[in-house]
């Protein structure tokens, strides 16, 4: 064990194990998680070469092998609970990238949600048993976010009782689906349904794409890998072009809408329930932001405790770089953010399960708010995390740029979260739509509830003139509750500004859509402020729940830092709204510095509490034992460029010397 890390751990003010239990939900959960993780760590079938040294094709091959092994092992170990599946996958797949993954995460759930009992009987068994491997093909080369714009067509032919699938243009080629390029032999394809000469919009079809037995593309199908990406090297994201490709009528998923043998279209009764899957995935992504940011913080903070550089005082030994104020200022607000997002993620998961039960009982009342909240929080947490991972990487200086740090991989595999499952700006605007609706509702005299209830208190909405003291005059910068109030006021103010600007543009432009576009920057700001408020509020509430004094104390410091740092970074909003005074901003900045010093002794213990195994971190810099430099050297020696003492390209050097 590196001595610096040993000293850091001995000097912490709390026992990280207790904090780990808080993060896992309970001590029992921590124990079960570790049991499952150990199943993998001790299993030789999961060992493989370091992915950093492999080509893309080799990485894909390793991932397929691991997918296959995993399917067998999960069955063998009896792992079926969704949380446990996640722990299991988290460990064996460094970055969750899994070619067979979409069979389980999209193909089967869609079949369950949208297939009739007969269809489930036909396909479910074989896909669960991997007799067929499915994927989900929605996005096209020219269309992503805007679903109604998809161009793939499925035209019904009553004579043969088949659908004829076509990709009529280049832009209609299915593009991006994971596992589509090389792995899957079936796909659920979203296409515009045309029957009896009329287009009925998007519907889902089960399409065989590769021949069972030979795995060759079927006639009429063009399928392949979309080529190298920023990350996700192990995944065969694919393309799919269909040319008058016929599938039987029974391959359209018909739980809701139907096409009768004669071609008659039967409308679905209720299609709002498809919301469910999106909400689930987005709330899962909030947790994913928290995990990735926690990993990045673990690496950067451990390395900063091991790395020594320059001198604060001449003649003294070089200090740990974590002792520099600028390094603390780079990393501790991100650490606080990681904790904030951990609790936001846990809240989203609970809320999803609670509301899902309500939906099961036919109560859809909370769905719109949940939908709006998950969209916004997915965008808010992924944008923040995206920037924060990069900041952690750069805080590791040059070594952060090497793949040995693990940080480039975390970044490139995380960053698509900002664009997939709903592009972030579009997500923020969905939240804004809900905020505007709520604002209008209050404006017309009806109260709103849930996270937006602060809109009931807007000064312009007050009916009774005597209630004057709306903005509290003093924000106590040492009280998380008081800071939550400040964030609430900021959100209320920005929602109101966006609403008023929108109204003005509507009057001015005479078109709601044009007005919406011309206010969209304000609308995104309002959504961001709303999400920021929610994060501060949830963090503050979580701290109050903690019983153990030492844990509560350290989390309270992080909560304060998270809230104050946000105020300092967005000082303009707080000053302009007269929520905080100029002299308070100065105090906020001073308080932040004091908090950095207070958190410093606990920094390493705080990242230890995330409890990542070295295998999961995939980082030489972030090793638990802190033996960074020895292992950096060992790691580099394995680089493919070092396989021969004299590189092949020496021929060019040689001839250069002779020709010039």
């Amino acid at each position: 064990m590196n001595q610096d890390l040993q000293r850091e751990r001995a000097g912490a003010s709390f026992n990280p194990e207790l904090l780990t239990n808080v993060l896992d939900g309970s001590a029992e959960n921590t124990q079960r998680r570790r049991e499952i993780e150990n199943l993998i760590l001790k299993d030789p079938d999961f060992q493989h070469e370091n992915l950093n040294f492999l080509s893309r094709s080799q990485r894909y091959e390793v991932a397929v092998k691991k997918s296959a092994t995993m399917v067998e092992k999960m069955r063998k170990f009896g792992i079926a609970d969704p949380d446990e599946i996640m722990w299991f996958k988290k460990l064996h797949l460094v970055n969750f990238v899994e070619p067979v993954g979409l069979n389980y995460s999209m193909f089967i759930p869609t079949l369950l949600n949208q297939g009739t009992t007969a269809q489930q009987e036909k396909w479910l068994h074989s896909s669960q048993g991997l007799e067929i491997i499915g994927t989900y093909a929605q996005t096209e080369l020219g269309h992503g976010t805007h679903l109604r714009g998809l161009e793939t067509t499925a035209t019904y032919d009553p004579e043969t009782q088949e659908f004829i699938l076509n990709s009529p243009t280049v832009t209609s080629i299915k593009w991006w689906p994971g596992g589509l390029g090389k792995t899957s032999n079936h796909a659920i394809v979203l296409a515009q349904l045309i029957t009896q000469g009329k287009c009925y919009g998007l519907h889902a079809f089960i399409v065989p794409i590769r021949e069972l037995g030979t795995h060759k593309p079927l006639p009429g199908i063009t399928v392949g890998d979309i080529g190298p990406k920023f990350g996700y090297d192990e995944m065969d994201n694919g393309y799919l072009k269909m040319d008058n490709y016929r599938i039987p009528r029974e391959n359209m998923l018909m739980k809701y809408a139907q096409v009768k043998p004669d071609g008659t279209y039967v409308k679905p009764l209720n299609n709002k329930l498809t919301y469910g899957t999106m909400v689930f995935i987005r709330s899962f992504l909030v947790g994913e932001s928290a995990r990735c940011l926690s990993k990045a913080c673990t690496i950067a903070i451990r390395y900063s405790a091991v790395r020594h550089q320059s001198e604060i005082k001449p003649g003294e030994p070089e200090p740990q770089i974590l002792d520099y104020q600028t390094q603390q200022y780079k990393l501790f607000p991100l650490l606080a953010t990681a904790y904030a997002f951990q609790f936001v993620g846990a809240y989203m998961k609970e809320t999803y399960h609670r509301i899902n039960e309500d939906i099961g009982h036919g109560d859809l009342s909370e769905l719109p708010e949940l939908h709006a909240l998950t969209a916004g929080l997915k965008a808010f947490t992924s944008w923040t995390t995206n920037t924060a991972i990069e900041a952690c990487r750069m805080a590791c200086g040059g070594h952060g740029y090497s793949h040995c740090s693990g940080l480039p991989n975390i970044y490139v595999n995380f960053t698509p979260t900002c664009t997939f499952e709903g592009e972030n700006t579009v997500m923020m605007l969905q939240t804004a739509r809900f905020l505007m609706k709520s604002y209008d509702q209050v404006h017309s005299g009806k109260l709103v509830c849930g996270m937006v209830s602060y809109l009931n208190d807007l000064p312009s909405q007050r009916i009774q003139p005597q209630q004057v003291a709306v903005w509290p005059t003093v924000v106590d910068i040492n009280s998380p509750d008081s800071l939550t109030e400040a964030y609430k006021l900021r959100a209320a103010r920005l929602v109101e500004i966006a609403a008023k600007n929108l109204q003005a543009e509507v009057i001015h432009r005479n078109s709601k859509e044009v007005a919406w576009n011309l206010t969209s920057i304000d609308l995104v700001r309002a959504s961001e402020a709303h999400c920021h408020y929610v994060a501060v509020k949830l963090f503050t509430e979580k701290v109050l729940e903690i019983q153990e004094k030492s844990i509560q104390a350290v989390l309270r410091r992080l909560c304060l830092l998270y809230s104050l740092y946000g105020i300092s970074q967005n000082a303009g909003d707080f000053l302009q709204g007269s929520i905080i005074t100029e002299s308070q901003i100065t105090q906020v900045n001073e308080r932040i510095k004091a908090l950095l010093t207070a958190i410093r002794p606990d920094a390493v213990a705080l990242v230890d509490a995330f409890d990542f195994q070295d295998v999961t971190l995939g980082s030489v810099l972030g090793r638990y034992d802190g033996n960074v430099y020895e292992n950096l050297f060992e790691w580099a020696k394995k680089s493919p460029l070092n396989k021969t003492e004299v590189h092949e390209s020496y021929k060019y050097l040689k001839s250069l010397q002779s020709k010039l």
Partner: protein
Amino acid sequence: MHPDIDSERHLQPFSVEELTNILDGGAQNTALRRKVESIIHSEPELSLKDNYFMTQNERYEAAIKKTFHILMLAQRLGWSEGSRELQYASRSVSGDLGFGIHHIFQKTIRSLGSEEQIAKWDPLCSQFQILGTYAQTEMGHGTNLQGLETEATYDVATQEFVVHSPTMTAIKWWPGDLGRSATHALVQAQLICSGARQGMHAFIVPIRSLDDHSPLPGITIGDIGPKMDFEHTDNGFLKLDHVRIPRENMLNRFAQVLPDGAYVQLGVPKSNYFSMVVVRVDILLGEVLPLLHKACVIAVRYSVIRRQSHLRPSDPEAKILDYQTQQQKLFPPLAMAYAFHFVANYVLEFLHHSYSFILDRDFTLLPELHALSAGLKAMLSDFCTQGVEQCRRACGGHGYSKLSGLPSLLTRVTASCTYEGENTVLYLQTARFLIKSYLNTQKSPGSASKASLPQSVAYLTAPDLARCPAQMAADFLHPELYTTAWAHVAVRLIKDSVHHLETLRQAGADEYDAWNQTTVIHLQAAKVHLYYVTVKIFTEALEKLESQPAIQQVLKRLCDLYALHGILTNAGDFLHDGFLSGAQIDMARKAYLDLLPLIRKDAILLTDAFDFTDQCLNSALGCYDGHVYERLFQWAQKSPTNTEGNPAYEKYIRPLLQGQRARL
């Protein structure tokens, strides 16, 4: 030509060609550049098109091969070392070449070597009889040169230096061209002679055999492994085990070890310091800025081809560039792309101007040059990195594909935030200069101090308004108004920064603790100062374009946007002492929003003016003709994952499918 991009080029309120000439520094340069580009692009060996499909090994080999071809071309066509032709050649292959550090090796010998040493080594370098690298950074030490651990101990008996890596952390780590290419290394090591440590000195150490390229005895050498990018460069490690080199291999222009081991210092080697300045200025124009320019070209072009959703229900799907949020993502980076062009050229001119003075041992301008180049390197690399990433994400999913070109631009530009001086350290160097300059103004009130204040900080003593006079949104389109606003905030923060430092000192903290406890505020002051400097340089550059009013007008919008974007993202700093009121911030925001649709009209032309060839952009999304989707489809099919079969099927997928079926 795709009609959606064609229509963007129909109306030309200004001459794109003239703007290109301005960017190239004259019409002759544009012509020369295009000539070189056409030569380069006609050589199939110099194509970049397979880059995205290559492994690290293949990228390295391809870069060496390209370098070899370009050197042969240069020899044939008479392009001399350091010529514009070679610069343009490098630009047209996106700098995808080897031996970058060989040139630094050579330059360092020229500046730190004696005449005798130069006469011996320089021709060997020019003729590539030897290949050099510059080995400074160690595994455990980068920024702090004094902390380097490699030792060179003089042995009087044999008149040799014994160069040695005493610890694991002393292993040289990161030097380019070291891993696989170089035959010689310029090693920075602690000189020990006659039992005394004399600090860092430079030594020429042969590392590979000139016969068969194998490592020499005592040398452990190799590649440091895969990185985020720079796969074409063999960044390496070097461990020295008591390697002996002759006394003559220590570069001795400024210091010498006599045969008997006596150490002689020959003046202060300030030029050592100076060479870092030169490199920092060079990389701005040569490496960092073109990456942002390319990202803007790709993202803006793609945004007029990509259509998504409807602005009005009855309209066809809209170009995504017509969405306000997309404009807000792309136009600030575009404005920076232009702002930084003028800024980088300004620093380059300042460097040329100071160069002759410094060679004449007049170091008056050096502190300012050093502070400015350090700070602007940090600021430009930070902003360019953020800008490229912003452009990449503005392209949605396709921006994640390497075929878009954007991931590679990002992974390349982001390296510049930590190489050639870690950015935080560099900002703090600027901050030290600011504090010193400010304290100077306090020392001698009324004396000649103002005249002697360096140009970039002259505003510290300029008269300052307490309140911004703006009364309506249009007032924020006056360069003088926003430049003054930036100056005001910079002065306030510098004063604040000094005040914090003094307060801690007076409270009894020693100087070093006081500095460390106030670095966050110094950082903030330095950043605002630099923003002010860039706004000022941009506005002054515009004044010189009076004879080309159409271009001046379109660039002024970018300058306004650049200044206002900064004010709005740092609104707290402007509101803090009431310099701007809340109402004025709203005016600034209105002025900013009103600029977006104006810039929208010229956006394609503004990116066309950078004049990158399609081959050089190497992007399926950013080609001039706008045929995005066809190209993506074609390029994807060339991926080895599609052309080389699928071994994973035979090995794993087939058994998986069949094994399961048997069991069912």
